[in-house]
């Protein structure tokens, strides 16, 4: 950072202006949403982008549109706004809980869903596993295609390092209303306020006989990046929502994770607590059913 000019920040009012500002600012210019990740770049010994384009004044990025079949969330919606707006919808409970339980109240007032999804090298992002279990679709705009924005399933988005950067802005995150119940369980070492050492988000469909018909389970903070736990999803198919039984299945499959060592906890610990978190998630779903 030393020697470089401090980065300028453009504050556009519309998406086309923002896209134009990003491409005008040149290579490496990046969106600035809540800034709660970007402002700590010096602490992480990372250089700032050469220029930033703020998203907070762009009305269309701050909207949440609720329809019968889908909910579209503007990328600059804050965690606090999201928690409030989604609280009535039980199928989106995983995302509401992720937004309501992350960080602390003042950070939630600033931090955005787009920032959570686009922060690079952030294993403990709360909203990402929730978006994975809810099968979210990410909309991306770029100066060359401001109207016809690209849509990517969140898994493909996370797997593609070129999905952000290069003048691209995530504009909306779209969730289909599945009608399934979903849940987000996290384990911080204090009761709240610090990063979770492990996260389990799940959306589970139960058939007439009380048996699991469909399951999407995602794990965060255990490995370097959040991911689906497809092994467990398959294993619980046809099972009842029995927390002890499903936690035991999770324990037998947990060795497929190689936990990351971090300041809050060593890797083995993150893997060891996973079955317990899975059990808690199932208990919460069973209680709500």
């Amino acid at each position, binding site marked *: 950072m030393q020697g470089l000019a401090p980065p300028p920040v453009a504050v556009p009012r519309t998406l086309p202006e923002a896209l134009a500002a990003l491409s005008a600012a040149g290579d490496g210019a990046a969106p*600035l949403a809540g800034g709660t990740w970007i402002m700590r770049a010096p*602490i992480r010994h990372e250089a700032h982008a050469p220029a*930033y384009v703020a998203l907070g004044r762009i009305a269309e990025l701050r909207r949440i549109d609720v329809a019968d079949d889908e909910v579209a969330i503007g990328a600059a919606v804050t965690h606090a706004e999201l928690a409030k707006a989604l609280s009535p919808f039980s199928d989106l409970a995983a995302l509401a809980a992720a937004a309501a339980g992350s960080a602390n*109240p003042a*950070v939630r007032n600033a931090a955005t869903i787009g920032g959570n999804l686009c922060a690079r090298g952030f294993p403990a992002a709360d909203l990402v596993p929730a978006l994975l279990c809810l099968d979210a679709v990410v909309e991306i705009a770029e100066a060359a295609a401001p109207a016809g924005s690209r849509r990517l399933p969140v898994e493909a988005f996370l797997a593609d390092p070129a999905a952000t950067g290069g003048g691209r802005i995530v504009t909306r995150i779209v969730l289909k209303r599945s009608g399934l119940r979903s849940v987000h369980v996290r384990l911080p070492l204090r009761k709240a306020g610090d990063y979770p050492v492990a996260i389990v988000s799940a959306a589970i469909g139960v058939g007439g006989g009380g048996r699991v018909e469909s399951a999407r389970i995602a794990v965060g903070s255990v490995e370097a990046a959040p991911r689906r736990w497809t092994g467990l999803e398959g294993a619980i198919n046809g099972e009842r929502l029995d927390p002890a039984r499903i936690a035991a299945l999770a324990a037998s499959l947990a060795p497929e994770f190689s936990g990351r060592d971090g300041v809050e906890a060593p890797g083995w610990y993150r893997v060891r607590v996973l079955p317990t978190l899975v059990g808690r998630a199932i208990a919460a779903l069973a209680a709500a059913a």
Partner: protein
Amino acid sequence: MMQVTLLVNGEERRLSAEPLTPLLDVLRDTLHLTGAKPVCREGFCGACMVLLDGAPAVACLTPVALADGRSVETVEGLGTAETPSPVQRALEEHEAVQCGMCFPGMVVTLTHLTRPGNCAPTRDAVKAGLVGNLCRCTGYERIVDAALAVMEDGR
């Protein structure tokens, strides 16, 4: 540099700053309002808390560019030694202040929590509202007592 207008404790202040400068540094170094404290500078401790358009914000992680045109309330605007605010009076009455390092931030967050409609008058709700305000002297119970007392009086 960027021209920025802030409504600080009701007074319009114009200044120029690098846009990514933390609001905390602008308040302390340019406006000489040193109530908000730089302690962790990473959003965890709450010593730098201000109200941005009425909502708690950590000034250490708020780029001044994002505060442009908005209202900023700092602890200096909330009460004085001669005329303490209800929150400040309650903290004194409950003997909640120990070393005092966390208190500027505590007073700002509690001012928000005790304004109507922001927090249910229960211990759990007040504690949840204080998750981002660390007190190293761990005097939380008396701080919560003081907040609940203000909420009671306000009804």
